[in-house]
């Protein structure tokens, strides 16, 4: 099972966890498993067409999956996926 790091804005959708485990041999499969287990994440991660939303970056370990094979990128048991939506908070 790969480890998926959950960003602050999605934690409420996964019961407050900072990381979860999910099954799958590709990035797409792991994220779909995450969305199946935590349905609220579905629309946050994927567009209606099933593509990864452009405002969500996903990294396999430290590399952006868009420069790898996107959702088809192979994922191993010990790999970590990092989900990263843009964050703009300063504090006034």
């Amino acid at each position, binding site marked *: 099972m790969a480890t998926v790091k959950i960003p602050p*804005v999605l934690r409420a959708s996964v019961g407050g966890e900072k990381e979860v485990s999910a099954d799958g041999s590709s990035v797409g499969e792991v994220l779909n498993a995450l969305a199946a287990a935590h349905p609220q994440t579905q629309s946050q991660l994927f567009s209606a067409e099933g593509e990864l939303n*452009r405002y969500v970056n996903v990294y396999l370990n430290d590399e*952006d999956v868009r420069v790898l094979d996107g959702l088809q990128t192979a994922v191993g048991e010990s790999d970590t996926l990092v989900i990263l*939506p843009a*964050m*703009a*908070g*300063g*504090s006034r």
Partner: protein
Amino acid sequence: MSPSGAELLRQVKSQIEEVDPAVVAEHLGNGMVLVDVRETDEFGVAHIPGAKHVPKSYLETRIEAAAPDKDAWVVLYCASGNRSAWGARTLTKDLGYRRVASMTGGIALWKDRGYAVTTPKALTAEQRDRYSRHLLMEEVGVEGQIKLLESRVLLLGAGGLGSPAALYLAAAGVGTLGIVDNDVVDLSNLQRQVIHTSDRVGVPKVDSAEQTIAALNPDVQVVKYPVRIDASNIMEIIEGYDVIVDGLDNFPTRYLLNDASVRTQIPVVSASILGFDGQLSVFKPYEGPCYRCLYPTPPPAELAPSCGANGVLGVLPGTMGLLQATEVVKLILGEGEPLIGRLLLYEALGATFTELKVRRDPDCPICSRPPDAISDEEMGVFPDYEAFCAAAG
């Protein structure tokens, strides 16, 4: 009978290698490590460009920072070639350097031959005292401190991130600090915005920040911009700054800042925070990715909460703001590996750091084009990001 000083010097010179200034001029910057062994005030008046500075009395303890490789070609010089001869003997006999020479005639002969010297602005006695811990560092020294004093850094916001960054940059002697903030100090700010004080609630943040900085370091000139940065004023405000510290609290202005900073080729040290989480990166135009390469489109509103609505651990902007200040100082000094093309994530509750790679997007709408490809007409009229983001949200 013990030899006289002059006799001893002759003996020392017979035991070491001496090189002519012409040899140094030919090989400088070509693998040769040139070390000025004079005192700090002498070095401050004038020295050979590219020379490292290790006073003779500190050779034993500090030469390894200047010349870590004992097989490197190390040439020492002083005023006239005597102190450097003693130094060369020390490096050879006591410290095991294998290829050491002393430059004949010192910097006096070098200048007589017409070779260039650097005459940095000297620090005052008070500045030498104030910045003494910097001056002791190989990576800063007098030259680095003068770079800091001559540098101009713009802080976007004197809030959670800008407060700690401004304090430490002022303490470090960054000569000009521009501060853009149209807000006034509120009691709820003081849990994290440490440049402000309880008795200044209600005072404009730029004025409050200026007061604190003036009390901390009179070397620092504060330029106040009590405005909200937008498309109509951003080019005028950022022009002439060396580095921008981005602590903005919203996406539209972050995109606007990105486009303007790419156009003007000013590096931006960017951080953001939420709850217990922080992000940090350095966007140096054309050397690394820009903000749009990392985040091509802003998220919808429900995924882009602001800190005001969500709360933030007071110390977190302190941590992130000081990481920003560190990157700023590195950029000014030209030392180390700035966080260009890398995104650092900090999660305070777990005390974990995660580093991610950020690539330049070859199709980036902004930084895939040369800065002057953006026409003057386009310049003042940035797209209306407020409307764009409202529509996206």
